[in-house]
């Protein structure tokens, strides 16, 4: 007998007692106390007597149940008819005010509600039927162990064995190895065209943007200065228009006129232009690459590439709404909070003869999320 204590109020856990190993269980014996006997167990008392429902013994109750179920099915029919009427009768433009939800399209709500009625009527009707009128005495089915009998298992082994034997698989290793090789390789013709056709190689594509200008024959870029244009107005920006505290969404000159690959170009070239009091800018590089406190930074987050859309004018923080990386514009857009690691890349800018802001060159590093070889291009 296990050391189950038997006084009624005290601790009732199995307490390991005695010398080490006295209560030892062999590891292959399962989690059952294995010191020779198991505690005496209670026996399953068997089923409780069945208690009849009202509808089983009372004619009136059964009739009521029948009416309830019939009523629910009728509700479903009404719902379906209502759906048909609503579909044709309600003006799609009409709106309706629903308390707690607000203004919404009348047709949408009418269709949904009537459809719900039509479905719920059937559902609740069927369940009510099952619960009140269908048999409620539980029945018993026996289980059987999942494993097949020993003969079947032995038979399985011998079938495989005979198959291997009679097909000469065992005796002729040449067949075994060549078949293995053939099967191992046959996926290649299927997979290769898929892999090859998925997309072009990235090359240096992730490291350059529209600010680099068009790619030359020899693979270099023109790097010509480009005017900073307002997005989406597509108008150039005079330095004098950029007041302290203001922020502009900027695209390079020509990008917004693209007929093709507009979004791909935007995804890398988007820039935020801000003007700060030059005295609060702590980074000399930031001042040098800007123009009288006007600075331009990539709008694409260095975390996973969301647009860094929120500029807090008072604190000079840029916040990415996707994962809350926070960049400090006074400190060369260094990350001061959140999951991003690298600062936003700065676009060097100056003004042209007419006083419009232009780029002095492209971004000096890849914009957007990190990738393995970003530092090597």
């Amino acid at each position, binding site marked *: 007998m296990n050391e*189950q204590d038997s006084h009624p109020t005290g601790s*009732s856990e199995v307490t390991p007692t005695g010398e080490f190993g006295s209560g030892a*269980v062999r590891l292959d014996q399962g989690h059952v106390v*294995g010191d020779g006997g*198991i505690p*005496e167990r209670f026996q399953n008392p068997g089923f409780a007597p069945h208690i009849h429902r009202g509808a089983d013994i009372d004619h009136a109750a059964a009739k009521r149940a029948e009416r309830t179920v019939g009523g629910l099915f009728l509700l479903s029919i009404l719902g379906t008819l209502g759906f048909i009427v609503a579909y044709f009768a309600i003006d799609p433009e009409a709106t309706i005010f629903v308390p707690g939800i607000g203004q919404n399209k009348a047709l949408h709500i009418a269709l949904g509600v009537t459809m*719900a009625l039509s479905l719920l009527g059937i559902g609740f009707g069927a369940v009510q039927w099952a619960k009140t009128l269908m048999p409620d005495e539980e029945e018993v089915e*026996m289980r059987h162990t999942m494993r097949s009998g020993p003969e079947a298992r032995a038979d399985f082994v011998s079938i495989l064995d005979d198959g291997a034997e009679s097909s000469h698989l065992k005796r002729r290793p040449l067949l075994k190895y060549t078949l293995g090789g053939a099967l191992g390789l046959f996926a290649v013709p299927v997979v290769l065209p898929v892999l090859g056709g998925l997309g072009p190689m990235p090359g240096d594509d992730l490291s350059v943007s529209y600010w680099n200008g068009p790619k030359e024959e020899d693979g270099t870029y023109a790097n010509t200065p480009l005017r900073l244009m307002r997005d989406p107005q597509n108008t150039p920006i005079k330095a004098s228009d950029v007041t302290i505290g203001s922020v502009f969404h900027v695209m390079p000159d020509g990008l917004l006129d693209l007929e093709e690959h507009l979004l*791909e170009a935007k995804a890398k070239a988007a820039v935020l232009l801000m003007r700060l009091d030059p005295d609060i800018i702590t980074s000399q590089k930031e001042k040098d690459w800007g123009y009288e406190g006007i600075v331009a930074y990539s709008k694409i987050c260095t975390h996973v590439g969301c647009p860094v859309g929120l500029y807090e004018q008072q604190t000079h923080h840029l916040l990415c709404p996707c994962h809350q990386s926070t960049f400090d514009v006074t400190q060369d857009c260094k990350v001061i909070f959140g999951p991003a690691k690298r600062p936003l890349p700065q676009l060097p800018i100056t003004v042209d003869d007419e006083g419009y802001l232009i780029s002095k060159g492209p971004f000096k590093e890849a914009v957007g999320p990190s990738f393995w070889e970003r530092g090597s291009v």
Partner: protein
Amino acid sequence: MSTEIFPAGRPADRLRDGDRPEPQQPSNAARKVGGVAGWIDDRTGAAKGVNYLLRKVFPDHWSFMLGEIAMYSLIICLLSGALLTLWFVPSAGHIVYDGSYVPLRGQGMSEAYASTLDISFDIRGGLLVRQIHHWAALMFIVGLTVHMFRVFFTGAFRKPREINWVIGTVLALLAIIEGFAGYSLPDDLLSGTGLRAMEGFVQTAPVIGSYLAYGIFGGPFPGEAIIPRLFSAHVLLIPALLVGLFTAHIVLVAVQKHTQFPGPGRTNDNVVGYRVMPVYAAKAGGFFFIVFGIIAAISALVTINPIWAYGPYDPSPVTAGSQPDWYMGFADGALRLLPGWLEFHILGFTLSLNIALGALVLLPLVYTVLGVYPFVEKWVTGDTREHHLLDRPRNNPTRTGIGMAGIVAYSVFMFAAGNDIMAIKLGLSINDITWFLRIGLFVLPPLAFWVTKRICLSLQRRDRDLALHARESGRIIRGADGSFHERHDALTERERWILVQHEPVAPLELMPSVDENGVARPATRKERLRAKLSHFYFKDAVNPVTPAELAAAHHDGHRAEAIEAAQTPFDYEGVEGSHEGHRGDGHGADTDAGLESDVDARGVGSSSPIRE
């Protein structure tokens, strides 16, 4: 079964007592149905298998409906999704919108977005179908998640159901991928931002990231390939896998028969419940309509994913509070918690673990851990028997604690995905919330484990107390000698059975390191680990009351007479009803070698006289 009241077997037939039974003549309709069924059976021999299925018994419990909710939501998704393909144009091709939604007229956008606007505004009932599709998808994943909780906490994943647990895990993973692909299709500003982030995740894969991203998107982001590719994944590839695995899942449930909760008459060898025909056909069939109806009502009344309010995708603008659907929240939250210093620059290469850990590692890791849990537990317990009776969660405190720790860790990630929303709604600093959750990720799960385990142990002790001493009635009795004692109301043996039916457990211990002949027998490292883990699981196990303990409690001096007045302790051979036969056939569960020697592996039932 007792049939003395209803000789004809059907409850309502009693009402016709005294009627002269008419000879059964099949009605015209029945004859027609029979004719069709006969025609099919002539050619397929299906009657036998169909009869077996129609006669199958399923146990009843509210928690068994959770999986049904998932199943029906999946079917609703398939139905509504098939309708949506009639109108949706899976193309990123550029067009100018001229539909009936005035605020966007004249705007350039993709055909995918424009056709989604058409479904929402120009097709009668189209918006309803879209909303049903989205809500059913959310319901599917909620349903399968809670179903998974049920299966985990009741130990339903134990042998022989490990395969089905693994299939379920894969289904859960596929479901969230399917969901992501689906909500990315309309190509609106929100879903496009999600795709942008996904492209960022892929880029951070060490070494191959940029190639992988260009492969998936067919070139630079966003490109025009991703919408049709996601479409084929969303409507063909993943649904085929989902339906195939889901079918296997259901077939295995039928083959292995459903588990049941312990209770009087329920044993490891039987299934107690209702037959498919007619009860489950009505209940489960009706439940499909209820789930569908509730989803339709929600879809009518609560707008989800109003893509017209977001506008078409453009990589430059963004909306504050950009959030994925809830089931992607935990991965998004992980990205918000991971600190930036996990990005390393080595020899000119960039290893961005601050993203890769959350976006590329976490998802497969979570589902791998889930998938292997049954095998770990089985190794620790060394239990190779089949289990068809569910555990009450309190009766396995360690497993329940582990489950709660997992749920809490998941919740920390999920709440992290809403750190911006919480900051705004609660007026807190987002930095504080993020730090709280970063620390919470390490502190809260162990705390949840400990609290849950203590609660389970307390509940078990309460069960013991109840089984031993029954309920305090509040009635004080004065004895002949002037003493006072409280009368305790007796439990019926069926009430008590629930409290005492589970197996006693004890941790595995290592054999002595020296055997009886004095020969050294050092334990292997594996054995030591296993003993240690077993100790972790079972060291403070509270075991059920045994008949001997109950007898001792009853004969204990104080209050004995009052308790004994209330019941006869050892009359557990069945109070009322007859003892005509054994319900069990004495057929034992699978007993692997090594267990049979000193364990009654059949559990209970085979020798207990049970009322037939």
